[in-house]
């Protein structure tokens, strides 16, 4: 045993306690809706609430559309930067990092200023327009994660040679991206997708200011008026996020196999 190992275990134990105690406390609290014994009643109450289902389905649809929009923007952009415009790479990396630097509150105020009813593109004037704005805002929010995931995926394949091999066989750019590049970075795109999903499913600030019925605002509303149900909702949100992270880990196992193929 190395000398540093007991300290490593101690740090690990402290970190585990720090992260796990609130989580366990929340789980236990969510099960204490009945005074005499533990029960899942809080979960049943939440799951049977029509508002929960409506907001959760809404967030689910929004997150799926966000992933599609994000992938459609990021995959061709990252591919082009890698293949034809490598000199733009630092600039693109900086731009994709901006959503991490700019708080969502500032972002959404910017959007509201740009796309309000008296602007040149009054997206907030209709429900559809606001929904579109929300998806675009979420796509921007997920940009740092999606771009990095896709860029890492592109790094594992020989983009230039594969592109040239497909080109000389008669393929155009769209065919190359759709049939050669995208399938080879699918694992990376899905990693980005699950990260985006994890962010979008619990997002509150942007949706609240755009007045959209997302899961995050439902969580906040319930938190103000109930006691045990918010804890159950937190546990559900945790489970969803962890499932998304687990999927990334699972997909990462397939990544080396894909890389080895190239």
């Amino acid at each position, binding site marked *: 045993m190395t000398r540093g190992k007991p300290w490593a275990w101690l740090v690990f134990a402290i970190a585990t306690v720090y992260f796990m105690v609130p989580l366990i406390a929340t789980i236990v609290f969510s099960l204490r809706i009945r005074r005499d014994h533990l029960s899942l009643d809080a979960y049943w109450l939440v799951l049977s609430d029509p508002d929960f289902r409506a907001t959760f389905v809404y967030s689910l649809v929004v997150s799926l559309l966000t992933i599609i929009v994000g992938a459609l923007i990021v995959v061709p952009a990252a591919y082009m930067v890698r293949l034809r415009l490598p000199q733009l790479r630092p600039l693109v990396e900086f731009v994709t990092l901006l959503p991490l630097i700019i708080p969502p509150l500032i972002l959404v105020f910017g959007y509201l200023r740009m796309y309000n009813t008296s602007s040149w593109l009054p997206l907030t004037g209709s429900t559809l327009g606001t929904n579109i704005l929300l998806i675009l805002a979420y796509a921007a929010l997920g940009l740092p994660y999606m771009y990095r995931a896709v860029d890492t995926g592109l790094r594992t394949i020989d983009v230039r*040679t594969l592109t040239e091999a497909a080109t*000389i066989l008669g*393929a155009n750019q769209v065919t190359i991206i759709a049939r050669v590049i995208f399938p080879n970075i699918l694992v990376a795109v899905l990693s980005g997708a699950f990260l985006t999903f994890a962010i979008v499913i619990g997002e509150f600030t942007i949706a609240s200011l755009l007045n959209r019925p997302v899961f995050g605002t439902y969580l906040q509303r319930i938190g103000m008026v109930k006691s045990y149900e918010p804890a159950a909702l937190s546990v559900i949100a945790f489970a969803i996020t962890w499932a998304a992270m687990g999927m990334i880990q699972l997909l990462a196992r397939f990544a080396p196999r*894909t890389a080895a*193929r190239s």
Partner: protein
Amino acid sequence: MAEEFLRIENVVKAFNGNTVVKGANLTFNKGEFVTLLGPSGCGKTTILRMIAGFERPTSGSIVIEGRDVTNVPPNQRKIGMVFQAYALFPNMNVAGNIGFGLKIAGMSREAVRARVDEMLQLIGLPGYGSRWPFELSGGQQQRVALARAIAPSPRMLLLDEPLSALDAKIRVSLREEIRAIQRELGITTIFVTHDQEEALSMSDRIVVMSAGNVEQVGPPFEIYNFPKTRFVASFVGTLNIVNGTVVDPASGRVAIDGQEIRAARGVVNTKAGDSRPLALRPEAMVLNKPNGQGNHLKGTIEEVSFLGAVVRIRVRFADNTVSIDTFNSPNAPPPQRGDVVTVSFAPEDVLMLEGAA
């Protein structure tokens, strides 16, 4: 007369002011196997990539079958290409890879399947259609890459150092296979390599390049036996280059380190006192046979390298040295370092190269 297929006219290519191809003029005949041979950075791959359409010439034009294709995009040139790194699509199995170009061309599913089977037979991998690229060896991957390139029946095939990532034995067998397939299909082929043995063994003609210039174009026999420049002589084979001084152009007399010899050709356009490089093949010289016809030079053994079947002996005259290859014989042990020997060779084996010594 051979039918011209491809013409490269005054092609110059510069990257950020660095000229890598300096005015190449080349013609390629229909059905011919031509190798672009040269060291790294000589511009051979750049020429190949300009023919494929991946690079656009800075000036000059590329004409295929009488049509200027300089500005035609690569996906419309109907050219097949095999890359050094195989470049098989990892997300497709062998059949998917070979059939990719056929599907792009809009062939029916049945026609694609039939052609893929035909190609698998041609490359000697029948039944491999459902395998994945990562399940194949390097040689098998490159054969699949070759099948993929020729499946859509391109009018021309480009091979960019396709054997350099393979081990020596596979390289030899695959180059024979490539040549056999090329002969069978009669497809015009341009092969890029830095390996002179590959170039000599496979090609109808070789284009030797150096530093962006075409040094010499000719059949392997001519390139090997009659190199025109010092570069070709040194790059193709293991020629000895020595500095000679022309004594009498009329009789072909030349002096090497004060000892006179006779050269059978190449002395015509020189004058007495000219300093010129001379090339001598290691296998054209013999040791210690001073009584025969031809040239004889006295020298001292400087190094003896035992290479198995061949013994390479380096002999120093004064400033110049030559390496001589002799077959190993258990009955005749090689000479020792420091021995004084006579090096003999025929006047026909002396090649006078262009340029000053």
